[in-house]
């Protein structure tokens, strides 16, 4: 089979580079080994965790960081372009490159963010809130929402809270099972009449609360349930992310995938790229588990296979490696160097990944593979969690490599 570009990995990076290429009229296929980490998304994307101008903070990063590789201008250009691109796919976000906002986490922390899905409240600063009284509403038996911790968040900021628990007959069926009261299962039944019923309950209960917070269990395949519910409640209604899987995260994945397919892209799910043929510093084709000897040929390839969670990198007892091509990577030799004993300190393993040239082309045995680009968390020298750069690197490097291919 022949495509112009083949993308290995169907998460945020793979999808965005795929969308950019397909928009430019390229024939693209994405091969994805299972569903992506977008399914656990907080609902926000971070460019960099910084109180000040994010771009100024990026300018201070080490020269090896992917942001520095693609350059500050590129980061700014792609970051500014992405909300419109998301909007085309039906993903509504707010936020700005100039200044971070804050979001409320499931356990009641304020965390800085660059773009946030429309489901969630965005705060101008971490300490003062624009409300005096908020209502926190959960569903009876739902364990992945923590009113006590949210209460703490608001109390620390001098905001009064009222709590309500909705007991809904429609949940009885779900609750027969010990594990069904999870966000995505609830989201499945959140349609039509049930939404109206919830809206009625809310209207009757929230009193003088200026805003309502509920768990993010609405709108798995599209945002219809969110807008339907909001339109029936007279005060602003915001959601709080839940533990996995994240309903807005699943929705974002589906929306981006659908848009990619609508643009003519081919999305192959549940397949593993097992290897490829590299000749004269060019990747000729890749082989997959499902397609066996029907190889995928392409002019260009993008490696967006993620980090350890997605098996873009593998750690064995002895060493760390990139499993598909055995590409050159950054990683410490000794196992004891991979981690820090404090879970919350900088974890060296997070910074491991493939090395590239200035155009994000991968290297094999010291030589650049001329048509194999890397994007997202498979790239070395970043720490998505400690730096708060995960979403930003995924998005900007994806659009950067797409442009490298389009403009080549």
């Amino acid at each position, binding site marked *: 089979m022949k495509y112009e570009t083949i993308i290995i990995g169907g998460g945020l990076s793979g999808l965005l580079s795929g969308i950019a290429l397909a928009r430019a009229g390229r024939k693209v296929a994405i091969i994805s080994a299972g569903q992506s980490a977008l399914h656990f998304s907080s609902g926000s994307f971070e460019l960099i965790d910084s109180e000040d101008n994010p771009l100024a903070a990026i300018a201070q990063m080490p020269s090896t960081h992917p942001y520095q590789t693609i350059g500050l201008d590129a980061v700014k250009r792609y970051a500014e372009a992405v909300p419109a691109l998301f909007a085309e796919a039906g993903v509504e976000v707010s936020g700005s490159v100039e200044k971070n906002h804050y979001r409320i986490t499931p356990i009641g922390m304020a965390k800085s963010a660059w773009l946030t899905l429309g489901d969630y409240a965005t705060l101008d600063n971490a300490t003062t809130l624009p409300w005096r009284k908020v209502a926190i509403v959960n569903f009876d038996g739902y*364990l992945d929402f923590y009113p006590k911790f949210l209460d703490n968040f608001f109390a620390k900021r001098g905001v009064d809270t009222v709590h309500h628990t909705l007991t809904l007959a429609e949940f009885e069926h779900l609750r027969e099972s010990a594990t069904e009261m999870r966000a995505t299962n609830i989201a499945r039944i959140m349609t039509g009449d049930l939404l109206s019923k919830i809206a009625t309950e809310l209207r009757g209960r929230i009193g003088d609360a200026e805003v309502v917070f509920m768990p993010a269990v609405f709108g798995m395949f599209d945002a219809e349930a969110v807008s339907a519910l909001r339109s029936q409640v007279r005060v602003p209604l915001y959601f709080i992310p839940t533990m996995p899987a994240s309903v807005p995260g699943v929705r974002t994945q589906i929306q981006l995938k659908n848009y990619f397919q609508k643009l003519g892209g081919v999305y192959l799910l549940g397949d593993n790229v097992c290897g490829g043929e590299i000749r004269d510093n060019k990747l000729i084709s890749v082989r997959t588990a499902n397609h066996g000897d029907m190889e995928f040929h392409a002019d260009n390839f993008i490696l967006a296979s993620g980090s350890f969670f997605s098996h873009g990198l593998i750690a064995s007892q002895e060493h760390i490696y990139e499993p598909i091509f055995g590409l050159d990577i950054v990683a410490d030799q000794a196992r004891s160097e991979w981690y820090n004993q404090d879970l919350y300190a900088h974890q060296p393993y997070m910074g491991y990944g493939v090395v590239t040239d200035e155009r994000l082309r991968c290297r094999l045995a010291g030589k650049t593979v001329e048509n194999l680009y890397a994007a997202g968390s498979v790239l070395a020298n970043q720490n998505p969690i400690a730096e708060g750069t995960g979403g930003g690197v995924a998005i900007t490097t994806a659009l950067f490599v797409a442009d490298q291919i389009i403009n080549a």
Partner: protein
Amino acid sequence: MLQTKMNHYDVIVIGGGATGAGTARDCAMRGLKTLLVERKDFTAGATGRNHGLLHSGARYAVTDQESASECISENMILRRIARHCVEETGGLFITLPEDDLSYQAKFVESCQAAGINAEVLDPKEAIRMEPSVNPDIIGAVRVPDGAVDPFRLTTANVVDARLHGADIITYNEVVGFVKNQNRLEGVNLRHIRTGAESTYYADVIINACGIWGAHVAELAGVKINMFPAKGALLIFGHRVNSVVINRCRKPADADILVPGDTISLIGTTSSRIPYDEIDKNEVTPEEVDVLLREGSRLAPVLANTRILRAYSGVRPLVAADNDPSGRSISRGIVCLDHAERDGLEGFITITGGKLMTYRLMAEWATDLACKKLGRTAHCLTAKTPLPGSEQTESPKRKHIIELSTEQKAAEGRHGTMSRYISSHNANDDALVCECEQVSVGEINYAIENLHVHNLINLRRRTRMGMGTCQGELCACRAAGLLGKANGCAERTLSDLSSFLNERWKGMYPIAWGETLAEIQFTSWLYNGVCGINQMVTPNKD
């Protein structure tokens, strides 16, 4: 604090391990007014950091007949009194091609001398009995080994001590003693988190602190020569073997593989460490590699099995009093009457021994305490089942099948006490921990009844967070429930933060493969999505 009737006891037992809990139970059952104090949580020391092997004593038969006979006799007692903590798995002592087969004959002979039923098996039969065993074995002996859950065992002793009137104080460290001339009259405690101080008085004080006993004795002004011996172990992700597998040779590294509840354990290494490192519980990469390499000789499948955790514990090796150099070490039970030994009245140290002999140690210490107090009550602990292990009419098979998975799991964990776990409604039956099948009902039961102050306590009482994902999915849920129960969000959040760090401590020595993927996922969730890293992590446990 003034000495009043309220804070005066017949006996204060220091140490919330199996020995301390067992001693408190024995004292309380004999009608003594008893207080149990523990610096952290029950089982936080060596009790919660061993194999969980219900020794038949075979391992000691060749080198230490006395320990061997103590083991087999306690083994049989625990099968009766602690049914819900014990699994009667049986055990094998295997000989590999590189081992000396002639050791087997000596081994069997020594077992028989100690009263341990050791039966030589054809290697083929041993492989049929335990398919995971190394197929290269050239010899096998069957012994009545089993598995014992030290968390359950200790909790059951604590619960029974309380049922017999004992008072329990956790998270209070002994910082000094009330001394009146040559007699100890009380203990000074300090709460390890709040720093609040208190004093309790007793006629007899029993030091049951394991390796920490040397320090406690020093506070009392007496010297016990102890040598800390560290042993490291690995926990595998599932039950690899159903029969305990031992190596039939002189005790060495990683020669016991024990199935325990949903997992299997290989251990141990053995190394002397300085006394000031007894709280560190580090496991080095070298120890992990030795455990894996040697463990795979017992059961080759271990080489391809996911490892959940590495951990280590510290055994107290007590030097004989006539040999302060430490060359003559006793591995048996050491019960010191400090009045006799050091001229200090009202103070007993019970140490040495092993998890297997905790009850016997408790009996000896309590006998001595009774003697000092002039009481004559007899020990009943060898005959009286622990709460959860009472004989009931054997449940009909049908009944078991009708139980849901989490109810079956809870019954396994709490025995007959599981009847107090509220169930049969959607709220109580919902799962908190999916890996270990822990329901909301069980979590609430533990919070209300089993001295739970934090998530680590909760884990030890229920197995919540002990499964494949090491708390990644359930820690937050459990924190939600605990926060609701204790009403303090900040404390619960810092507790959640230290709980996850404590889980990580057992994961980083084996942080490759699925473990590294799992912790990256956990970090995304808790740091990335939740922002837990904004909490300042307090002291671990």
